[in-house]
Each structure stands twice: as C-alpha cells, then as structure tokens.
C-alpha cells in the first residue's frame, strides 16, 4: 500500500519544528510501524536528506524507548500496543498519517520525534524503590505474598516508562506513570515501610518536573501500551493523602508524643 506521511522535523531543542510531507510507497502490511519508518529513512538517505530521528530499541514492546503520536493518538490506533508492535495492517492504502513526538512541557524535543524523558527517572529517584542494599535480603520464602497481591502488583509493575500517558493526557500529567510504581510497591509487603515517604516524594517530584495535574480524563490508560489501570491513580491519591496526614505529628515535633 501507499501512504502519505506528515512527520514532525526539528533539528534540536532550540530550533523551530514543522511537519514535512513524505510518500511511503509499497508498504507491506506485515511491517511494523517502525520498519515502515526504516524504509522511508533508507529512501531519504539515498536522496541525500537527513533521516527522521526516532527513539527505538527492543522493538518488542518492552523497553519503552519508542513512542510517537500517530494521528493524534499516543502509540497509534491499536489498544495495548507500543509503536514498535503496531503493524501496518492497521492502516489502509491511501491513508494520511501524521507523526509527531510526545508533546509535554516536561519532555522537550531533542530532535524530530525524540524527546527528553529524564523527568521520569527523577520521579523514580524520589522514592520508586525499596531501600535494601545488596546482600541484606532474608530468604525469599520468609516473605509471603498472597497470589492475588502479587498479580495486582505485577499488573502495575508492567509499566514500560514510555511516557505515552503523559503525551495522551490533556494536562500532560505523569500520574499514571507515578501511580504504577507507587501501586506496585504499595501492594507488596516489601513496600510497606516506605509507603508514605514514597508517595509523598514521588508526587512532589512529579510536580517539580512540570507535569500537569490529573483531572480524570482517563486518556492515559487508553493510550498505555500495558493498559495500566486508573485504579492505580486512585490508590496513589489515597496513599498520598494518608501520608500527608500521618506526616503532620512528626513535623510538629517528633518524640514529644
């Protein structure tokens, strides 16, 4: 099939960008979306034009490197699917496809379709871990985890950190990303000792990075390639509120009881 692409081109973070039209010819329905871009790029290089820069790595939907807006949808039209796993059979001959980078103030464009997602790492640094140093661990079977809790934790832990939730959100909020980690650890016994400070730290960092607030649009979960549930956000909000209340007496003077 033949397609018309309108691709966002931008040389670097400081330069203005614009949509540029390209024709993609003889696209096979078995190609992945990124393979289609590969073919376009090979053609551009042969013509002496700069290829389109885009992030990608594993190409099996798990590393979270890739992700573009496809006709206004983060990762394109297929539910629960990262851009690299979207195949061209989701499109038909003659389609016009607009391809843009993630749009969020917290994610500046580095070049073309590549954005800087380092704020997500800094949110994790603010508490997305269990503070246990190597070698400190007790035997694995001393920690019992009910199967259902392990499954729910895994549902949240699947987040690939691609940033689609931010891109899809009209407020460019990183709530789903943050909530996925808060939920994953909050659902497990290992995560309990630091549950309060985790929720407080990560939410505070999320705000500091310039992400917007959550107003329950739910676009994030629709765009999420791992279909992380909105329930995680409810859970994080609860943890955050509880932590805020519990934090008060401590700040009023620990030890005075």
């Amino acid at each position, binding site marked *: 099939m033949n397609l018309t692409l309108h691709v966002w081109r931008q040389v670097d973070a400081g330069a203005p960008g614009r949509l540029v039209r390209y024709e993609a010819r003889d696209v096979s329905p078995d190609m992945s979306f990124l393979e289609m871009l590969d073919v376009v790029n090979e053609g551009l290089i042969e013509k002496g*034009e700069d290829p389109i820069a885009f992030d990608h790595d594993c190409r099996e939907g798990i590393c979270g*490197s890739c992700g573009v807006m496809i006709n206004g949808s983060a990762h394109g039209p297929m539910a629960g699917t990262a851009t690299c796993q979207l195949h061209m059979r989701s499109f038909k001959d003659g389609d016009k496809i607009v391809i843009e980078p993630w749009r969020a103030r917290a994610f500046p464009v580095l070049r073309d379709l590549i954005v800087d997602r380092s704020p997500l790492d800094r949110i994790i640094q603010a508490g997305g871990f269990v503070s246990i140093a190597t070698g400190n661990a007790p035997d694995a079977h001393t920690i019992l985890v009910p199967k259902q809790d392990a499954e729910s934790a895994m549902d949240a832990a699947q987040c690939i950190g691609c940033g689609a939730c931010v891109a899809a959100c009209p407020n460019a909020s990183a709530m789903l990303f943050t909530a996925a980690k808060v939920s994953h650890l909050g659902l497990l016994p290992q995560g309990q000792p630091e549950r309060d400070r985790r929720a407080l730290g990560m939410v505070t960092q999320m705000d500091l990075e310039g992400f917007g607030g959550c107003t329950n649009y739910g676009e994030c979960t629709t765009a999420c390639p791992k279909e992380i549930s909105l329930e995680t956000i409810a859970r994080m909000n609860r943890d955050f509120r509880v932590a805020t209340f519990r934090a008060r007496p401590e700040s009023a003077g620990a030890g005075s009881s």
Partner: protein
Amino acid sequence: MSIDLNAKSPAGPLAQAWEQYKFDLKLVNPANKRKHTVLIVGSGLAGGSAAATLGELGYNVHCFCYQDSPRRAHSIAAQGGINAAKNYPNDGDSVWRLFYDTVKGGDFRSREANVYRLAQVSVNIIDQCVAQGVPFAREYGGLLANRSFGGAQVSRTFYARGQTGQQLLLGAYSALERQIAAGKVTMHARSEMLDLIVIDGQARGIVTRDMVTGKIETWFGDAVVLGTGGYGNVFYLSTNAKGCNVTAAYRAYKRGAAFANPCFTQIHPTCIPVAGDHQSKLTLMSESLRNDGRVWVPKKSGDHRAPGDIPEAERDYFLERKYPSFGNLAPRDISSRSAKEVCDEGRGVGPGGRGVYLDFAEAIGRLGEDTIRERYGNLFEMYERITDENPYKVPMRIYPAVHYTMGGLWVDYNLMGTIAGLFVIGEANFSDHGANRLGASALMQGLADGYFVLPYTIGNYIATHKLAAVDAAHPAARAVVDQVADRIARLLAVKGTRTVDSFHRELGLLLWENCGMARNAEGLQTALARIPELRAEFWRDVKVLGTGEELNQSLEKAGRVADYMEFAELMCRDALAREESCGGHFRTEYQTADGEAKRDDERFSHVAAWEYTGDETPPVRHIEPLEFENIQLATRSYK
C-alpha cells in the same frame, strides 16, 4: 606481546572455594571507598546491579548507557525466567545439580570454578530480588512459583509472567536510581563508549560520545567495568535490541583484552519466523512455551495442508521422537538444529518453508484455555500482534534466530580481563555458559556478576593497586581521543552511495549462511574471503549524512557496523580453528552418525582467546586449557 590466561581459579574443594577466596580478598576501608572511582559501561542486569551495589558500598561510580534511561537496557526483554538452586519444589535440585546442568548444557566448554560459584550465588539473587519487590509469580499459599526450562529435569526457574527480565531489570534499576539520588552514582544516559584508555598497562578510562550533542568526552577511574552485552547483532537479524553492539568490547579487544570463543553464538529455537525483506529484528517466543507447546512438522515433505487438517498420524513431533527424556525441553542448540534439519528436508511450514509448529492444542485440551492464558497470555498476544494469527486456535510457527552470545571478552575468576583493571560482566564476558547457554541462565549470570561477584573482586583490585591520578591531559588519553575523533571524521567523509543498514544486512546474511547454525571449513573460508572485501566497500562507499556535532543516528550505526565488519572476521576465524562440534558451534564435518555434535576433547577442551596484533596482522589464538576435576567429561545426551 604475550597475554596471561591464568584463570586464578581457587584450589581445593569447589564447595568451599568461593567462601575461602572471598576471605582472602583484600578489602577497601569503608572511609576510603569514596576516594575510588569506578566506570561502569552498560546499565542492564549486570551493569545496573554492579553500579547500584558499588554505590551502596560507597564507591564513586559513573555509569553509562546508550539508551535514554538505564531502565531500557536489553535485559528488559528477557521473558521466561531466572534459574536458582533453591529446590523449593523439593524435586531434587541442588547447587551441585545446577552446576552440573550448566556445565553439561554448555557442552563442557566452561570453567568449573566460575560455574560452581554462579550456582552458589543463584540462591542469593532470588532473595535479593524478592526483597526489592520484584513481583515474582506466587502460589496460592504465598510462596514463590517455579517452572521448568530447557536442559533441566527440575523446576528451578522463577518468573514474573513472561516479563521476568523486565521485572528484574526494574529491580536493579530502582536500586541504581536510589544510588543516583544519594549522589553515589552519576548516570550518563545517551552516552556511547567509543574507546578504552589504557595507561601503563591498566584500564584507567573511557572515551564517550554524547549522543545528543556529539561531544567527545573522557572519563577516568581506578577501574573500568564493561557490562555491554553480547554481539548477536553482527548477524543484523537477531532477537537483540537494535542498539545492542560489540563496540565497547571490540574496542577493548583492540586495546589488548583477549576475546574468548567468539564463535560460540546461541541460536534460539523459538522465534517468530522472518516475514519479509523489511524485517528489522526478530522476536523471541519464550522457551517457557515449550513446557506446554509441542513442536512438530508434517511427516511428508511438501505437505501444505492447514495444520488442523493434518491428522495426528501424519505429524512428526521430532523433539519428542529424538529426545524422549527431555522432549520439547531439549536444550536450545539441539532444538534449533533439529528444526533446521526438518526444514532442510523440505518439511518446514509457513511462507518460505522456514518454520515449525509449536502447538498448544493438547495443553489447552488438558488444562483449559484460561490456564494457558494465565501462563503465557502476554506472549500469545505478542505473537498475534506480529503475525495476525491466533495461537489459541492455530499452532504458532517458530524458527531459530540468533539470540545470545556465549563468547565474549576473556575474564579470570575475578571477572577481570587480560588488561589489568578492566572487568567484564554479564553477557559481555565469556565465562559461564561454555558453548551453549541454558534457558533462564543469562539473567542469573548478569545479576550474579553484578550483585555478588564483582563487588568483592573489584575491591581486591583497588585495594592492591596504587594508581597515580590521571586526566585528559595524559598523552595516552589524548592519543585515544584523537583516534576516536579521526574515525568519526573518516566515516562522515566517505560520502558514498550505500546506507549503513544495507551493508549491515549484507554482512549479517553472509554470517548467517556461513557461520550460523551449521558451519564448515568451506563456508567459513568463503566468509573470510568476502568480509575484508565488504569492509573495504564499506569504507569506500558508505553514506553517512550530517555531522558529528549533533544527534546523528546514522553516524551511531556506522560506527557500530564498522566494528562488526572487523569482528565478523574474528568470529569466522575462531569457528574455523575449532575443528570440532560443541554446543551452538556445529561443524558439519564433525558429527556422529546420527547427526549429533561430536566434540574433540583431546584437541579442543580449551578456551580459545584471541589477541589483537594490529589491523594488518592476523590475531593470535591463545589457549586456556579446561580442566574438569569434579565433572566427568561425557557425551552430552538428552535422549
């Protein structure tokens, strides 16, 4: 120049060796650790866990990765699981059995002492990961669940659905991010190591390129650790991530680190077959699927009926037939080769006839679709997304693909290479898997090296070496920087007509044909004649647009492919010199009457470690003899 291949394996009984060895290692005083800097390249299970652990211990760590975040390293894509000798299922597992299975699985081409230590620390890994909050699969009672994997008759594999690598990596990543927040680790994402700086015979620094600005930078420390993964992408098509590359390891080789067993590559039996010329990578379907899936092809060649129309009596379940005691869970090398054989006989299925069925009908009938969905749901979905076929209804089609490389930089028991102060961990080293890696053992090795081995051995190195301060003004460092800059300028100056990818594809195909699942002297010589020509064409005709001072993905690829063009030759040389079949290295000249690999322990019970001697002179093959004091060398049989 000569290289020292002293493995430094401790003497005495295996079971106590590592404990005693650790006791004998010199320590760095806690207050002094912060005065020592360690450079770690790679942030996967090996590099990420090492960086976190060394940061926790108090060292000053710099960690580098080419991705935009350390969480994206390709360990994340490992699906099936991680082995550990916990014996939780009470089915007869032990450290000794995991050790034995790994040595046997590697076709007796690995070092006993290293493998035994790996099996020992495997149990600590599970404890560590559980404590970090890795959501492993659980039984109803709240205990950890296990499943079985290829090459083993016990269930010792721990898993988190089909995303075990992701969960383990995110565990290591979270530990790493904690150390970054604590100021103990400085992370350099979107940074690619382009060379190693060796001063007075010691690895003291690296040269990196900032992949956003193009800036060439130097970094110095007391030791350099490479956790840079394998070189499977030399074949162009592999299950590796697109960015995986041999550059860091190969640059270290060219600076004096011996490269061991480069011909030992693993072709994984269960991948989705190639769909067309546009194919950019191959996707693995976890080996765990072989727990419930049955592998078969039609008995008759040229049978193009739909799988459902082929009656039971006309199907050949060839793994169950040939290897009744392991059946569909025969090791990877054997399963791959068997699939190739039936396809070579014209019995392959799917477009092009390069595929075999992996059929779940029997398991779905026995266990119900829900159970199968619970076990493998995400894999089935991935399969359907890629192929547009529903594996609950029709059998999957699979074919072997390049997956893992057992070869890598040579290391001793301390995981140190032949350059002092250069440590190599995870897939980037050669040490534990011999000529064939068993499933679920790569995650185990990466984390063993990073969490539990390197942090001890690197301390001993730092404690026993007094190192002078060095910086970018050192003549040796300046020379390396000049060479790196010159190479980038040369790549940009060619301004030829062919894209980097077109060269990479051609090289990959040449290797797949001649140094893939089956090799022989004639094919290897063909490849060895063609590779230098192709390399010359590359440097004469490659087309890399743009400049070095910007985000330039073509330039990144060009640098990596330029290294593959040289490395491919080393691989073929190694394959040619090893005149035996073992594990994943199958030389068609050396096989038994029934087509099994025929080892030659008299002549080849050794590690081949290659020394670089210059671009114009052939590399020298050195030998580290393998001594088996605890395991009886035997013909590997899974029948």
